[in-house]
């Protein structure tokens, strides 16, 4: 069974190696299409720095209609409108924080991909670390216990002990 799988895999790999140019062309084509997935309309940027700043902001803001896409990725009408709004505010000389405040005042913290640390988001930010610490503690306790167990038995009472 396992051998069969290995042979299949080897054949597959061989066929990939034979048509390597084709495979590379396919990869290149995929890369091009994934770049096109960014739905940013051409904006009249004054310089490269402005463009970088604009796109950085878009990647931090959520499209609320699609929810799992940033403003940079989404093709929804509302995302396009918010992109224009971000661009307008950059042109007006507003700071990144001002632009994010504008968005959260209207759409709430959910619009930010990096939610602020506060009471309501405490679990979101620190929950994983609490779980990690719990796991580390459990592991430490377990290892310690195993070391004690591995030590030469000095008492015969262990057999009666509850496991």
């Amino acid at each position: 069974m396992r051998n069969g799988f290995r042979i299949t895999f080897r054949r597959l790999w061989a066929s990939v190696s034979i048509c390597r140019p084709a495979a590379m062309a396919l990869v290149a084509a995929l890369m091009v299409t994934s770049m096109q997935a960014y739905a940013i309309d051409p904006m009249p940027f004054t310089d490269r720095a402005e463009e970088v700043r604009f796109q950085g902001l878009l990647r931090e803001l959520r499209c609320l209609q699609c929810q799992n896409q940033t403003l940079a990725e989404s093709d929804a009408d509302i995302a396009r409108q918010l992109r224009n709004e971000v661009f307008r505010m950059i042109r007006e000389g507003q700071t990144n924080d001002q632009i994010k405040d504008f968005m959260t005042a209207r759409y709430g913290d959910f619009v930010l991909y990096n939610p602020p640390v506060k009471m309501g988001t405490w679990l979101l930010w620190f929950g994983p670390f609490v779980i990690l610490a719990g796991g580390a503690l459990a592991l430490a306790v377990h290892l310690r216990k195993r070391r004690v167990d591995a030590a030469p038995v000095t008492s015969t009472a262990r057999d009666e002990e509850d496991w």
Partner: protein
Amino acid sequence: MNMRAFIPLAVFALIGFLLYSGIGKDPSYVPSPLVGKPIPSFSAPALYEPTRIVSSQSLLGTPYLLNVFGSWCPSCRDEHPVLTDYARRGKFKLVGFNWKDETVDAKRWLQQFGDPYAEIFTDLDGRLGLDFGVYGAPETFVIGADGMVLHKHVGPLDAETIEREILPLIAGK
């Protein structure tokens, strides 16, 4: 009895509680930061007479439902008979927020399905919708007589939701 035997049970209970508390909730619902605050100040042209201005000031005095709709929006058509029924029975004052629509289309839509709105204003380019945090029609805001946003509902309203979520908020106000 060793207490450690209860650890898996406790973990199970915790995970079970977390998962159970998520059942029946709409994961796409985004709470509006406007709730508990005054309605954004605005002035917008009325649908039937674009020269007349409807404003946040002119709507003060009675509680009302601000319904974001568009003739292009299929779910708006779904909730329309329900809203019409309640508005006609005088259960609440209904104000229309005609969002990103063509005026001609909106008028034809209302002619076809009925117009239960006490007042309708337009937002042709959706700029005003941004100030209200609108991200998809239909959305409905419940506004108090003092202009405070009491509640926001996203998606089509049905009779049950109106009875449960909306009417208690404006009762006796």
